[in-house]
């Protein structure tokens, strides 16, 4: 996927999420930023260096976990880590310490002697991500690093990333799993069809695009015609399957809720439960991409 007119700046010591549907241009952008491919025009400045003119200088200061698997089939897990550290010119003592640290942090102790070729996809991915922390870096690119990981390994990785960011690392992170981005990212950009369509903090994006809220009200069974009583209220759904459930989805959800509560109180209908569902980044993502596709069409 070609990318066009991307203009991004990532703050140091933060996690920047880069989100987009399949084929939106995320991996192409990562390949450009990591100097694997050169842009046809424009400038790329990484850590204060011109990435087009000095790609090697940039690469010496970054780490990259690419989306595709990468491994040495004949090496064991611990040997993979050790050799990767050697390739990055990490001195032997530091290398050995880091191997032990990463084997523990990524729960690889039990498989440390097993060859990469004999690992499951998820185990290989863990080794691939762990390996990147063998060397020092200022900026780490993670292209869908949690693909193939089980929930506990995924949470372990995200927490490890958070820890590293607290120590000063900057992360450029792409994922399809929006709650990961919500859990992790200080700022996110959404890309669609090669163009950036939104950039902000997750909370600001919710404020901008997430005015619609979902409110659920549950009532005991009643002989009163609740639907008839609410006939003049807009933007709600009613479901009588187990008791009476009202779901409000509206940009003016507070107004709608107030009206419904007034009507229910006036008719002596009690409320068993009331909950407000916060807007998720996933909903924002879907809205933003849908709007973008609609405006393109």
């Amino acid at each position, binding site marked *: 996927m070609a990318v066009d007119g991307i203009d991004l700046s990532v703050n140091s010591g933060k996690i920047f999420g880069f989100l987009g549907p399949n084929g939106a241009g995320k991996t192409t952008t990562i*390949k450009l930023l*990591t*100097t*694997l*491919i050169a842009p046809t025009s424009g400038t790329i400045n990484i850590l204060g260096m011109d990435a087009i003119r000095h790609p*090697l200088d940039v*690469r*010496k200061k*970054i780490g*990259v976990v*690419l989306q*595709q*698997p*990468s*491994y*040495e*089939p*004949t*090496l064991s897990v611990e*040997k993979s880590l050790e*050799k990767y550290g*050697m*390739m*990055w*010119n990490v001195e032997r003592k530091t290398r050995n310490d880091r191997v032990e640290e990463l084997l523990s942090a990524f729960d690889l102790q039990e498989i440390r002697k097993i060859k990469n070729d004999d690992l499951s996809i998820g185990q290989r991915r863990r080794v691939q991500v762990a390996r990147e922390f063998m060397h020092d870096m200022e900026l780490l690119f993670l292209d869908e690093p949690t693909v193939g990981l089980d929930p506990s390994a995924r949470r372990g990785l995200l927490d490890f990333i958070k820890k590293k960011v607290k120590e000063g690392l900057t992360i450029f992170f792409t994922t399809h799993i929006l709650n990961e981005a919500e859990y992790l990212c200080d700022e996110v950009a959404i890309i669609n069809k090669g163009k950036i369509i939104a950039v902000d903090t997750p909370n600001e994006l919710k404020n901008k695009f997430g005015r619609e809220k979902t409110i659920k009200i549950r009532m005991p069974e009643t002989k009163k015609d609740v639907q008839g009583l609410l006939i003049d209220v807009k933007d709600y759904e009613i479901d009588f399957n187990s008791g009476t459930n009202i779901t409000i989805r509206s940009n003016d959800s507070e107004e709608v809720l107030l009206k419904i509560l007034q009507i229910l109180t006036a008719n002596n209908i009690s409320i068993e439960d009331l909950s407000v569902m916060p807007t998720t980044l996933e909903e924002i993502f879907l809205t933003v991409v849908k709007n973008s596709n609609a405006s393109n069409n």
Partner: protein
Amino acid sequence: MHPIIRLVNRNLTISLNKGFLIWQIVFPLIYIFVAGFAYTALIHSVPFGNKSLDYPAFIASGMIGFNIMNSTLISGIIIWNDRRHGMFEQILVGPFTRAHYILSNIYTIGIVGLISAALITAVGYPLFFKSVEFNFYTIPLVVFASVTGSILFGSIASIISTRLQSSEGFNVVINTAFLFFAFVSTAFYPAQGTPEPLSTAFYLNPLTYLVDVVRAGIFGNFSTFVGIEMIVLVVVALILFTISTKLLSKLEI
């Protein structure tokens, strides 16, 4: 440590496993000791310049060239595996350039070629020690042949690995090519006395030149013709190396 040395270290670690070393030693040993002695009943001696070599000595010296060629297969295998298992891209987003990657492969095959030649020389020495003639040219000629041959055949393996997508295709092409190189050469039998088309084909094969130079080194039989063969080896190695470097540097990511 220089990036190329680090990559060579990595290449040697992933390539020199037990299986490869056993294959590198056992396979030639079978040729030298089984075929070498079995064919003695048919081939009593092989004329070589102003000498007459017994067949085991002839084949043992031929196996040095054969082994150099075989060992350079790892160049193709390294590139092929790196592409297949994502390490090619991973290396190129690390502190390395394509030039580092290419040169590290050349150094790796040079080292493996020398080790391989040394191993077979050590193993074959009892067979050809009677005919060995150490002189000013001996060791340099064998080292020259090892390094030039490694670059030449390593480049061929690299070219094949950059052009083919499927593992089946890679294996079929590389095995067919190397089978031709092995048996249409003077590694196993002399060119003299073979039918004219075959002896001509021998000299279209760089392994023949490599083996001739190795033998000239071991048996102290340097001649003008061997000198021409050395020039041919260098020229062909340079051409193939240039092609493989261009293909590698244009390899799409």
